[in-house]
């Protein structure tokens, strides 16, 4: 199993979710986060004063998937989240040793 963690633009979440549903990924965890990478932030002027927004709102999507669909999932996320501009986000993949359902205590294979 793999844990796929994608940091995407807030307005691309629906597209990513739809793409994952088409691949049969049943559920996901979505978290509102802030951060920046190469997209350093945003300068705005309000009331004659400049201010910098250094941490930009992003959405973190986490899914746990079988090893055999990792490539297609990553491909789907990248296509759905991409605008081509700096700030489109990142995808991380980690190995998952074990997974359990809390309600039943059942170990997932």
């Amino acid at each position: 199993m793999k844990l796929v963690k994608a940091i995407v633009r807030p307005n691309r979440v629906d597209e990513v979710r739809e793409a994952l549903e088409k691949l049969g990924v049943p559920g996901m965890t979505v978290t509102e986060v802030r951060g920046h990478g190469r997209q350093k932030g945003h300068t705005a002027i309000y009331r004659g004063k400049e201010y910098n927004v250094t941490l930009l709102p992003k959405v973190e999507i986490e899914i746990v998937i079988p090893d055999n669909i990792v490539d297609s999932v990553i491909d789907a996320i990248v296509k759905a989240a991409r605008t081509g501009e700096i700030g489109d986000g990142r995808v991380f993949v980690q190995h998952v040793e074990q997974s359990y359902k809390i309600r039943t205590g059942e170990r997932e294979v």
Partner: protein
Amino acid sequence: MRVIPSTSAAPPVFPVPTAGGSSSAAALLAAARDRLVTAARAGRGGRAAQARYAAEFDDLVRVLAADAAASAAGASRVVVCALGGYGRRALCLHSDIDLVVVFGGAIGAAEERYVNALLQPLWDLGLTVGHHIRERSELDTADDGNPEFLLALCDLRLIAGDAALFDDVWAATERERRSAAPRRIEALLALGRERHTRFNDTLYHLEPDVKEAPGGLRDVNAIRLVRTLAREGSGGGWPDVSRVDEAEDFLLRVRVLLHELGGRDANILTHDYQEQVADALRSPGDDTHTRVEALMEEYYGHARTIAAALRATIAAGRPVASTPAVRPIGPDLAMSAEGVEFREPDVAASRPALWLDAFRVAVEHGRPLGDAALTVIAENVHRYPSSYFLDSDAGRQQVRALLYPAPGLAARLGEMIECGLLIAIFPEFGKIHGKVVRDFYHKYTVDEHTRLAVRSLESLWQPATASRARFGSILNELRAPEWLTLALLYHDVGKWQDGEHVEESLRLAKPMLARLGLAGEARHSIEFLIGHHLDMARVAFRTDVEDPDTVAKFAGSIASDEHLKLLCLMTLADVEAVGPGTLTPWKEDLLWRLYVDAYTHLTLSYADDLIQKDQAGREAALAQRPADIAEGELIRFLDGLPRRYLAVFDLDTIYGHVRLARGLGVGDVHTTLQKHDDVWELTVAALDQPYLFSDIAGVLAAFGMDIHRGQALTTPDGTALDVFQFTDAEHFLRQNAEAVGEINQVLDGVVAGAFDVSRLLGGRLRGAARRKRPVESRVLVSNEHSQKYTVVEIVAADAPGLLYRISRAMSDAGCEVDLVLISTEGNRAIDVVHITKDGRKLTEPERRGVADRLKRALQGES
């Protein structure tokens, strides 16, 4: 109300059943539960059924206590008592079993054997046992750090053990209770407040917790406890809370069904359970949907009864010394412990204007309306049709003033809903009273969501966080915050029907706006807010706000910064009122960013966005033009102006501007002066010339006018159109019949060069220069925001003649003042001026020069 005594003064002595062994416990429990489940499914699982279940559970505990006694030879005298809900015999199917075991002597090995023998079988049955083990002597010293236990002791009830020891235990708890009653009441009320806060202080949850939520079973117990604890020293007679028994029985019947359906201690009446509970309780209706609506209507009715009884009980339970005396407020109203009351209720019954006045006073004093006053209104409001309240200017003004979102307004609106007054005035709102709309997000009924949105809005006056303070600063800038309240009241009334609600809300709002006598900008703004109340959240949370085109498109749909401010606050309040945690700091940031970027677009970049031939507003203006305005005349006037012109002004005003601009010659000044409530509006048309704008601003300042907002435009053919909104701080217009003529005469003279404005202003400017300025001044002179203009933004402490000084400084630098936006936020002036020099943007040295001149002007230097 029939109050069940918390404890009996002479506790009965129960016979201890013959020890039958813990093997029989499971059978006893199963049989008792079966009987309670049967009653619950028949809709009869209320107080009587739960009391029977508690009695049967007592038998089980007695069996175990007997077994425990047999296995713990040598243990000291002991009593096993029920506490809390079990003590009150309100024992639900999967409730915790709260017990206290008190030993007459020290706790040693034998006593520990007793406790183990008593509790282990209960645990083995899968029960959750809240147990307290005490030596008798410990009860003489109360543990104030455990208020829940001390309050639970109020429901102490003997189940098994030594009757004489129980008498002693009872006497000790009674002594402690009497001596510490005020502290216990305070602890009880603090726990209640904390609990209510967790539920956002509302009882109108779509999926209510029948035990913990406001108006739930814990509040019933709080009523009972206050009456028990405050028997001595209370402020007066207890209110009649006779309907609380019925409400409690209903909640108990619902709760036992939830326990049965959930198979656990479940107390939330979820959407899924509502259907099954409605069927079990025989809620009326031909289909599931109707039955659920009836169930929830009944639930809210009982919850209201309990909440009102709790308020009245708390007020009556105050110690005499702390009960505020009734004091008159004016000839008709008085302030009592419960809040604002009518001094003569019989007279007030036929004076609806006094009802509104009572609510106004209640908001001003931050107090509720008293129950007696609410009762007077509730019993008489049906005698007056909705038209009655708004059939005069005074009535309309009274209602509009009441809707100013001052702190406490939302709470008063809740009272106005409960007593029927709000729905009498706004019958369209009645369509969503108690309306349940199931969706994934909303947590409250539609009317309560609306009220909570107003509460969110009013909280911006005292923002809890720095993040929220940003939005509070917008509220300070609004010309008429009550428009937001009105828009919020009607934004979701269209939800009375299934399907799309925005258009229906707008349709229902139109007659209300007419009844309130709102026209022009007010009507335009409120209709805009209702019709677009979903737009900003959609753009902020579901589109790419980093994309300048997205911002430009959004700003284009808003078109004026005043509308943007209103919509931003409406969005904030609307989202926050959906449910706890819906408006996260993350969403606040997105909303704020969109606001700032759109605001920048609307104020600094709007000049490049000109009226287009295919623009809907232009076509409407042409189609609806009156007979005296030719199409060509209107086109010549409109084309070349910024798009925002069509959004800011309604059509009648635009046609007025066209007429005002007719026949202008060099030196001519055409003006109109109108009053809207307390605000005057001067519109000036003249052929543009150097210093024109600063001259007009200077004349107004010379007459003591305080300019709050306005704008100046220049048409491509050189006609300047300046609109100023101001207040007559020195009452010059009110006190002088010839004032309007005098102002016009001076304007003519100044524009023609016959009068020197600086001389007229002299004293005022010197006075302003001497004043301290608590606001940091900022000047931005930039070429980045507009393709055609250099944009100047000035933030400074508002002062007499400020606009004159800064616009003159720009004219002194040889600049043409092409477009101006004037606004104020409290004591800050925020002015945006688009300038050119010789028809082009300023060079960098010229921008520095203008900035320096402006800084000197702000410091009062000429």
